[in-house]
């Protein structure tokens, strides 16, 4: 074992550049790549090209956990029946609430038009599967099985049933990567649901969740406060739960205090996530270069041909019908009365209640 292979001959006169020189060249190339990649986006085509080539590898790597999941899906008939019954009861409850919601939505739209605000409520979502592939344990990222082909764009918000999970940072044709809100590179504008206090939640990079740095020392925030996303920055849809404060820390001798929050979304569990097309994407200009579809100044998100986009609201067709009907009435009534210049485009008012 502790001898060289018998066919090994050390070349008497080695040709070509030596080992040290080749290493030096490759290390230099790596450093140049690192430098270039962290400073600009020009290597993105190379990256997505490699991602596409590696798709089979990722698929194979995700196979074991997929098989495990499939095995876990085998269930007794009785369990299925009882689960079905539960779900039916739940759906009935939701439908009843939805009826009320539609009326509230219409009312909200009318009120917003009276206030001449541009924000609309329509959002479209798409279900994406989380690919069961390990990531660097020091980066809080997940891979999704939807990509540019489904209209996914960089900066798109990702939510689950409990709250905001993160945003898309990398898009390949058939897959994408999302950065979770607990990553230390991630910050999300939030507001405290109880008081409307606006701040930013930064990921802590560990299991403990989010950090709210630089709060004024007299800020009204306490343990148990719900944080919801605010539409500042225009990247996340407003009003989704983000986290719950579990500790408020006054630092002795500091002008600021810090609060810590647990994320609401179940980041490490679950197999599916929802991609949200928020209305501000339509008018956003900073990320439109990364998106394949041209930005349209309407609230309708780009259509996704292959996948079934499940609308957040069940009746999206009737909403455009009511909107134009109300429009001609509203503007003449409020225009002279209000100063349109002072109206913020995305009001930071009370967060919208979602179904």
């Amino acid at each position, binding site marked *: 074992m502790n001898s060289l292979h018998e066919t090994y001959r050390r070349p008497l006169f080695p040709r070509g550049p030596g080992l040290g020189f080749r290493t030096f060249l490759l290390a230099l190339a790596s*450093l140049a790549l690192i430098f270039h990649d962290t400073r600009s986006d020009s290597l993105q085509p*190379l990256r997505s090209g490699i991602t596409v080539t590696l798709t089979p590898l990722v698929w194979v790597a995700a196979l074991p956990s997929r098989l495990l999941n499939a095995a876990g899906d085998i269930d007794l008939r009785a369990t299925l029946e009882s689960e079905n019954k539960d779900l039916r009861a739940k759906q009935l409850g939701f439908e009843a609430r939805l009826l009320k919601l539609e009326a509230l939505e219409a009312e909200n739209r009318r009120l917003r038009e009276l206030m001449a605000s541009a924000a609309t409520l329509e959002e479209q979502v798409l279900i994406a599967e989380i690919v069961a592939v390990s990531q660097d344990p*020091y980066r809080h990222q997940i891979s999704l099985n939807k990509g540019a082909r489904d209209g996914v764009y960089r900066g798109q918000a990702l939510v689950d049933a409990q709250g905001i999970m993160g945003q898309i940072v990398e898009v390949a044709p058939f897959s994408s990567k999302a950065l979770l809100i607990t990553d230390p590179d991630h910050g999300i504008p939030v507001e405290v649901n109880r008081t409307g206090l606006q701040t930013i939640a930064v990921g802590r990079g560990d299991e403990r969740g989010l950090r709210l740095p630089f709060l004024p020392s007299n800020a009204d925030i306490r343990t148990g406060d719900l944080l919801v996303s605010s539409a500042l920055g225009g990247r996340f849809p407003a009003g989704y739960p983000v986290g719950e404060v579990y500790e408020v820390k006054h630092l002795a001798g500091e002008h600021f205090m810090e609060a810590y929050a647990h994320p609401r979304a179940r980041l490490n569990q679950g197999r599916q996530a929802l991609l949200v097309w928020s209305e501000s994407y339509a008018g956003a200009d900073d990320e439109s270069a990364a998106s394949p579809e041209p930005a349209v100044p309407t609230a309708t998100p780009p259509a996704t041909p292959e996948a079934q986009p499940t609308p957040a609201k069940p009746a999206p067709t009737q909403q455009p019908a009511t909107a134009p009907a109300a429009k001609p009435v509203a503007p003449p009534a409020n225009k002279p009365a209000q100063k349109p210049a002072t109206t913020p485009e995305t009001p930071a008012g009370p967060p919208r209640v979602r179904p």
Partner: protein
Amino acid sequence: MKSARSLHGYFLLSLLLALLLQLIRLPEALSAARPLWVALMIAYWALREPRISTLFTSFIVGLLLDVLFAAPLGQHALGLVVVVYLVERLRSIFVLFPLWQATFALIPVWTVFCFLMFWIDGATQHQANAWLRWLPILSTTLFWPLVFSVMELLRQAPEEE
């Protein structure tokens, strides 16, 4: 005696396997202690098979790892290139050691790899839990004898026929 072509086939196959092992999802608690499979495999080939050039391949595989982990392009490539350089440079020493001594002698190599990853993450403003980062050194050291023996077995078996 195997032809150089089948040797390269084995080489690429083992690298693919290492990439898969690196990718397969582990429970959250274990994933920080996952051994550096790709570095292990590359170091094995660099140590045992002077007939194939591992240096450039390690660069390419490193780029693949960077894309898979969404790290800055070149981060793992640099680490792997340095690992191969160290192993090839010190090959004449390593082959004299019995397996258990070589296992310990390789610890500095894994440490250098982990340090490079840590350093580049720091330089690109990506802070992370600093203490868990050194855990792979331990697990990689523990896995080296296993990988080495299994690869030796696999590599010798067809040759005896």
